[in-house]
C-alpha cells in the first residue's frame, strides 16, 4: 500500500453516528411494534369470533341431532303401539268371529 492509499484509508475512517440516531431508531422500532401489535389483536378477535361461531354451529348441530333421534324414537314407539293395537283388534275380531260361529251353531241346534 503506497502513501496515497494510506492517506485514503485515513480519510475514509468511519464517522461516529449522529448522537440521536439510536434514540430515534428505538422510538421508530417501538412505533413499528405498536403498529404491528394492532393487527395481532384484530387477528386474535377474529380467531375468537370464528371459534365462538364454530362452537355455536356445533352446539346447534348436536341439539338438532338429538331432536331428530328423539323424533325417530317416538316414531318407532308409535309404530310399535299401532302394531300392538292392530294385533289386539285382530285377536278381538277373531274371538268375536269364533263366538258368532258358536252362537250361530247353537241357534241352528235349537231350531232343529
Amino acid at each position: 500500500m503506497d502513501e496515497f492509499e494510506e492517506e485514503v484509508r485515513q480519510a475514509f475512517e468511519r464517522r461516529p453516528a449522529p448522537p440521536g440516531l439510536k434514540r430515534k431508531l428505538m422510538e421508530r422500532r417501538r412505533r413499528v411494534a405498536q403498529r404491528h401489535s394492532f393487527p395481532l389483536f384484530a387477528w386474535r378477535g377474529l380467531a375468537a369470533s370464528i371459534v365462538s361461531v364454530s362452537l355455536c354451529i356445533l352446539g346447534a348441530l348436536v341439539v338438532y341431532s338429538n331432536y331428530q333421534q328423539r323424533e325417530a324414537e317416538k316414531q318407532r314407539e308409535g309404530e310399535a303401539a299401532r302394531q300392538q293395537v292392530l294385533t289386539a283388534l285382530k285377536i278381538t275380531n277373531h274371538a268375536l268371529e269364533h263366538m258368532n260361529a258358536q252362537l250361530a251353531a247353537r241357534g241352528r241346534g235349537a231350531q232343529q
Partner: protein
Amino acid sequence: MAHDWQPDFEQLVDEHQSMVFSLALRMTGDRGLAEEIAQDVFLELDRKLGKMESAAHACFWLRRVAMNRSADALRRRKVRGMDLWVEIDENHGVREENRSSPLGARLEQLLATLPEAQRAALVLRYQEDLTPEEIAATLEAPLATVKSHLQRGLKLLRAKASNHLKEYVRGV
C-alpha cells in the same frame, strides 16, 4: 439451521451504527438521508434478527443492506431529477477540523465525484478494510469487476487529488 448465537438488537446497533451510517453517508453524501438509511437498515435487521447466524453474519448483512439501500436512495434521487452531485459537494459533511491534512479532507469530497460503482468499491476497501473478494460478496458483483472498479476508482481519485494539490500549492 440451528445456531447458538443469540443476537441482541441494541448491542448490534451500538456496535455497527457508525459503520452503517458512514457507508450511507459516503455513498449518498447527505447526512440526513444517511441517518434515515441507517435507521431503515437497522429496522430491517430487527425484522430479520432471527435469521442472523453469527455476529459476523450480522455485520456482513448490515454492510450489504446499507450499500443496497444507499444505491436505492441514489436511484430515487436520480429519478426525481435532483442534482445529487451538487448536494454531495455541499452536504458531504466534511469538517476540516476533524481531518489531519487538507488532502484528507478533500479526498472525501473528491470521492463523491466518482461513479457510484467505483465509490462503493473504494468505500468498502478503505473504510471497511475489506478484501476484493469480500467486496465482491458484499456487492454481489463479479470479482474482476470489483478489482476493475477499485483500480479505476483509485486512479481517478489519485488524479483528482493530484490536481487539487497542485491548485492548493499554487494557492499557497
